C-alpha cells in the first residue's frame, strides 16, 4: 500500500506542480490587471468555498448521486446489451448502431424535450447521465468480449470447455482491460451529462449553481462550479483507474529509459 501511494505521488507530482504554477501565474496576472473582468482571480474562487462551504456541499452531493445513478444504470444496460450483441451475431449491428445514435444526439437540445416527458425531478438528470455515458461502456464490453485470440479459443475448444467455462476462464478476464477503459472514459461523461440536464430545470446541483451564477454575473461562482465539475469528473475517472490497477494486475508496462 505504501508503495502504491508512493507511485501515485510519483505519477501525480508533475500535473500538480503544473497546476500550481498556472494558478500562481493567473493570480499574478489578475493582480496586475491584465486579465478581463470576467476572469476572476483564483484566490477569489477559492474564497467562495471558504465563505460558503454549505453551498458547495449542497450542490455537489445531488449532482454526484444523480451522475452515479445514471452511470450505474448505463453500465448495467450497456454491458447486458453488449453481451447480447456478442453472443447473437444478428443483434450486433442494431445494438451498435443504437449506441452510436444515442451518443450523437445533442443533449443540450433534447434535455428540455426529455424534461417534458419525464418531468424535471432527479429522473431527468439520471436519464441524461445514463444516455451520455453508455457508449464507451458498450464499445468497451463489445471489444473486450471479442479480445481473446483464436489460439486461446482453440485451447478452450480442445479442452472441451463449455460456453460458460470459456466465458469464465477466458472471455471475461480478457475483456477486463477494455471494460475498464470504457468505465474510465464514461465516468466524466456521466458527470457532464448530469450537469447539462440540470440546466433544463433543477433547483440544486452544480449545473443549477452554474446557471444561477451566470444569470447573476457572479463570475467567481461560475468558475467555482466549473472547478467542482472538473473535480467530480476527475474523481470518477480516478476511482476506476485505481480499481483497474488492482484488478488488471497482469498488465505490465515496459519502462523504457528516458
Amino acid at each position, binding site marked *: 500500500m505504501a508503495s502504491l501511494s508512493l507511485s501515485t505521488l510519483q505519477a501525480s507530482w508533475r500535473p500538480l506542480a503544473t497546476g500550481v504554477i498556472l494558478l500562481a501565474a493567473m493570480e499574478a496576472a489578475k493582480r496586475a490587471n491584465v486579465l478581463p473582468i470576467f476572469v476572476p482571480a483564483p484566490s477569489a474562487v477559492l474564497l467562495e468555498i471558504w465563505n460558503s462551504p454549505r453551498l458547495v456541499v449542497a450542490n455537489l452531493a445531488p449532482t454526484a448521486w444523480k451522475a452515479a445513478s445514471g452511470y450505474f444504470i448505463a453500465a448495467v444496460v450497456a454491458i447486458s446489451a453488449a453481451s447480447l450483441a456478442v453472443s447473437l451475431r444478428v443483434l450486433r449491428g442494431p445494438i451498435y448502431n443504437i449506441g452510436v445514435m444515442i451518443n450523437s444526439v445533442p443533449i443540450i437540445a433534447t434535455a428540455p424535450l426529455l424534461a417534458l416527458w419525464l418531468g424535471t425531478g432527479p429522473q431527468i438528470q439520471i436519464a441524461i447521465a445514463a444516455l451520455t455515458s453508455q457508449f464507451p461502456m458498450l464499445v468497451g464490453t463489445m471489444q473486450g468480449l471479442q479480445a481473446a485470440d483464436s*489460439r486461446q479459443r*482453440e*485451447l478452450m475448444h*480442445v*479442452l*472441451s470447455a463449455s460456453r460458460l*467455462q470459456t466465458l469464465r*476462464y477466458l472471455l471475461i478476464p480478457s475483456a477486463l482491460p477494455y471494460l475498464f477503459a470504457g468505465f474510465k472514459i464514461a465516468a466524466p461523461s456521466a458527470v457532464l451529462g448530469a450537469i447539462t440536464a440540470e440546466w433544463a430545470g433543477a433547483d440544486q446541483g452544480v449545473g443549477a449553481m452554474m446557471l444561477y451564477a451566470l444569470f447573476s454575473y457572479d463570475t467567481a461562482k461560475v468558475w467555482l462550479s466549473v472547478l467542482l465539475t472538473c473535480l467530480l469528473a476527475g474523481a470518477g475517472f480516478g476511482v476506476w483507474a485505481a480499481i483497474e490497477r488492482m484488478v488488471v494486475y497482469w498488465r505490465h508496462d515496459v519502462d523504457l529509459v528516458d
Partner: protein
Amino acid sequence: MSRDIQVDQVSMVFYGQGEPVIALEKVDMQVPAGQFASIIGPSGCGKSTLLRLVADVMKPYAGSITLGGDTPRTARHAHSLGFVFQAPTLLPWRSVKQNIELPLDVVGRGSAKRSTRTSAELIELVGLSGFEDALPHQLSGGMQQRVAIARALILTPDILLLDEPFGALDEITRQRMNLELLRIWSESGTSALLVTHSIAEAVFMSDRVYVMSARPGRITSIIDVPLERPRRIDMMRSQQFFECVNRIRDGLFGHEQAQAAAPGEPVEAY
C-alpha cells in the same frame, strides 16, 4: 493408456474469396499407439491443418479420422487430447501453476480422476520449480512453452499433438527442450504427433516421419527411423541418422533436384 491415430483418405478444402483452396488431398496416416510420429513439409502444405483435424478443431471435407477407434470429437470430449501450440498461448492473468491446472478447472477438480500427476510434479518435470507463482510475462519464451507442455500433460492425454512447439526458440534451447519432451513422452506412454519444419528434429524425435508437399497438401513419402530409444544427442552423428535425413530431404526436394539436374550436369547428393 494410449490411442492410435488412423487418418483415412482425408481431404480438406477451404472456401475463401475466389477459388476454393485444397489444403489436403487424400491423406493417409497410421500412428500406432504409443509411437512418436512427425509431419514435415514446406509452409502451407497443410500440416497444421492435419493436426487441427485430428484435434477436432475442424471437420474434414472428406475421409475419416479415428483415434483409438473413436471419432476425434469423442476423444476430445473424453479429454484424451493434449495440444501444444506454436505460441505458448498461456492465459496472462494466471500464474504458472494456475495455467497448468486450467484443464483441471475445466474437467472439474473433483472428477479429475484422469490426472495421475499433480501440477507440482509437472512443474518439476519441466524444470520450473520456484516459478509456480510467476505470471507468464515474467518468463522467457522457452519457459512459457514448457508451461504449455505441462498444461498439455496434466490430464495424461492419450494423444499429444504438437504444432511446431519449439519453432520460436533458439537452436540450443530447442535441442534441450526436445530431449526433455522425449523423456516426458517416454514416461507418459502417450502417442505423439509433431508438426515441424526441421528435418533433424523430425528424425531425432520420431519413430516415423511423414513428408508432405504443398498445393495440394499430400503425403509424398514415409520414412521409418530405426534409431533405438532412448535417443541421445550423439545419435545425430550416426550413419542411420544421416540416411534418414537424406531420405527426408529427397522427399522434400526430390522434385526440384530433378528440375535442376535437367539442363545438364548431374547434381551431387547433399
